[in-house]
């Protein structure tokens, strides 16, 4: 069992939707490859490989120790604050056209999220949306507007 966590809780987050379907032989340059290293190094059994073939963190179990972040060969895992349930599930760095070809749910850097955000919390940086969690108001307007379902409500309410 995980050690007691200090509020505000933090957790690892895998920034990949798994839209390129690694198991079918396709792959995106920047996404999760489903290698399972994070699963094996996690001391709290907080990570599984999900139905899309990519790693997924159980925030209730994760203590944000950062081991998976350090071990991930694709650097698609980062630590975030659990109270910020609106997250970017993509680590794309390629331009929009290429990103569209390899994955149906990749960030194409269209910037709709950036224009939509009332708080100025979302910025497209190197072809991928990035949320500044200190500024985000967790409204989910970007989730509703994102044409690629890259922005996600971890609670599963806003879609």
């Amino acid at each position, binding site marked *: 069992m995980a050690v007691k966590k200090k*509020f505000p809780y933090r957790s690892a987050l895998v920034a990949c939707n798994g839209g390129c379907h690694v198991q079918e032989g396709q792959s995106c340059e920047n996404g999760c490859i489903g290698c399972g290293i994070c699963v094996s190094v996690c001391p709290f059994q907080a990570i599984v490989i999900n139905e899309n073939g990519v790693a997924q963190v159980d925030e209730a179990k994760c203590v944000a120790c950062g081991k998976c972040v350090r071990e991930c060969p694709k650097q698609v895992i980062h630590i975030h604050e659990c109270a910020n349930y609106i997250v970017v599930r993509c680590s794309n760095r390629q331009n929009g056209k290429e990103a569209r070809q390899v994955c149906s749910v990749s960030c194409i850097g269209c910037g709709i999220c950036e224009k939509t955000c009332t*708080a*100025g919390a979302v910025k497209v940086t190197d072809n991928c949306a990035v949320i500044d969690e200190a500024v985000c*108001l967790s409204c*989910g*307007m970007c989730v509703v507007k994102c044409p690629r379902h890259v922005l996600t409500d971890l609670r599963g*309410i806003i*879609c």
Partner: protein
Amino acid sequence: MYSFFVNGCQVSTSKKQSLLRFLRDEMHLTSVKDGCSQGACGACTVLIDGETCKACVLQTDRLEGRSIITVDGLSKWESEVYTYAYGEAGAVQCGFCIPGMVMCTKGLLDRNPDPTEEEIKYALRNNYCRCTGYVKIIAAVKLAAKIMRAGKIPAAGADDWLLGSRVHRLDVEEKVLGYGKYPDDYYLDGMCYGTALRSKYPRARVLSIDTTAAKALPGVIDVFTAADIPGENKIGHLKHDQYTMIPVGGLTHYLGDAIALVAAEDMETAEKAKKLIKVEYEVLPAVHNIQEAAAEGAPLVFDEETTNVQAYKHVSRGNADEAISKAAHVISHHFETPWTEHAFLEPECAVAYIDDDGDVMIISTDQSAYCTLHESSLMLGTDKVKCQNALVGGGFGGKEDMTVQHLAALITYLTRRPVKVRLTRAESLLIHPKRHHFEMDFTMGCDEEGHIMGVKAKVASDTGAFASLGGPVLERACTHAAGPYAYENFEIEGRAYYTNNPPAGAFRGFGVTQTCFATETLLNMMADEIGITPWEIRYRNAIRPGGVLPNGQIVDESTGLVETLEAVKEEYEAALAAGKPVGIACAMKNAGVGVGIPDWGRVKLIVEEDAKLHIYSGASCIGQGLGTVLVQMTVTNTDLTRDDIVYERSNTWIAPDSGTTSGSRQTMITGEACRRACEKLMEAKGSDKSLKDLIGQEFYGDYLAKTDPLGADVPNPVSHVAYGYATQVCILNEKTGKIDRMIAAHDVGKAVNPLSCEGQIEGGVVMSIGYAVREKYPIDENCKPIEKYGSIGLFRAHEIPKIDAIVIDKPGLNVACGAIGIGEITSIPTAPAITDAYYRYDGSRRYVLPIDNTPYERKE
């Protein structure tokens, strides 16, 4: 068809729209407030399958099968607990954010019955409140959790309704449960919607306006231009320079100037119609700032003026130049303060209709129903106008001017249809007058002991596209620039410039927030130069009863600056001794408009058929709690109990004009009028009669706060009947560089309701923490301001420091039972106190607000 559940009932709709629009427009669940429709404010927060969501975000097509709960769906027990807890904690002010906050409370407590303070702050942090500073809302959640766990609601902490009692405000329940009505909550039969087409350019000549296509659009009732205005096009509180609509041939003054006004059956059609209006402009160079406005040969903002100087003030007493030249220590510096947005939670809205008397009835959210009446009458050219205040979702000075009221009145007058005119949040950010940007040069001279010998200053403000209250704001900035200190030589010269920026006007502090920053910062620098503490230099210079202010006024026994300094002394010195970065500043602020302007408070007490005493006063409660003040005043000055009394919201046909809610004046001035009316009631009633015996009788009280005009030829003019005084202290965390604690000691005369008074202090302090370290209202090269509520930099619940609100209960004047009031002063000394603390932290003096290089700064 999309089908989902709202408060347990299944509902379906075929229209794809936001959940917010569905709940309000289709179901008329008006407890779900529309504060921005941008996902920022949180006033529309509901629970969806137990999770908090902003209703403006989700569309109906994504809700299939989901369960939505609003405050209307709370159980009876929950409703009682939240009403009690929010009342007991003093968490309700304007109330517009409250239903959203209540839903956050429920969302948290349903899964965590015993949350920590940090968890509560996080649960509230996606919702903004501009009145309370969150302190008492956090306390309310804590209390609600405790009651939920105990299963029993205790008796209220105070219920005698006497002056000095911490009673629950009288409007708690309607605001917690969301049934209290703001204008936007009115849905009248046959109501249409109005919206204005705004200018495309900040400064352009309107060459032609073609509304043919817009008028032909199905669903459009009519489209009006300046030519349709029956009375005066130009309105304004003092100076009539605010165009209702820009006529053909006229000049636009900013992007918010209305060109045409559309009335349509629904908002969607109205918006479409605006796009069909063809306007030809001759684009002209705009005036962007004070320097451009003041430059020789500058383009004129107004055709009617010969200069861009809107107001000029010169205040002088003694000989500042000579005193400074002889002073042992002299410091000069340039200071700047930013534009600030009020960011009240409720955007401007008015509903108008033709009433049974054939009059134009305006239901408004404003700071004076009588101002709405006068200006709408002027524009319509008829006095057949009435105004009724609905609840007001915050004002802070930003709802003093006409924004929607006159437009609603015009549409109703011309179409005879009920109409709602409501600003979008983007329009609101553009249109209502802001806090003035000031540029200031100050020089202060002191003797060896730190006594102020003289102060000389020159200030300029950007008053934007129309005067609004630019003149009085400049005047107050100048008169109060001297600070609450006893010295004789003071001279200040100020100019307010028209520009093509959005207008600037009243904002909590009324110019003093700006000049106080300069004076107090200089005083802190001076203390360092002389080698005494900033506390000590203030104590040595502080105005004391019987002393003479730099404006010549001899202050009375109620003067409590020294008491506020003494109240913070121990904590200030302890912080200093512990080596913590600590800053301090003082302030004074008038109660009442003063300077010779007739300042009347008026109250009418009527015993109505229900054998209750109804309090009528044409004075707006904009969230500060005036109704509660007047009821406490009445209970104290009669033999009646709370249950005998009904507080009526301000209107213009029964309630007598009691002036604008401005200048921190209502508690004292309307309070005294109320006390006088109570005297008359008690003369008639005696101890033997009951209210039943007095049915149909009216008791009228009025009070004139008499003052001398500026420059009056008397040795010691009375500029204001009373002043509030304050000292605030800021203590930083030496590790994080964040604000750990604010201590705010305020001399308010007799505190009518200390709970409300603390709420005012906490709210004012948090508002000015934002002003000091983060809030911005950037204006681009097209004179276009920020459009998004969430990007202003308002403080959020988890960011606030600990705030110690200290109410110095020193009896005031022999009016209003010694109450002086609070309001504006809470926001005045905060910024210089914080700035001083940051200097102690990193050695860098800052002269421009918001200050840079703090952990709160948002880098682009």
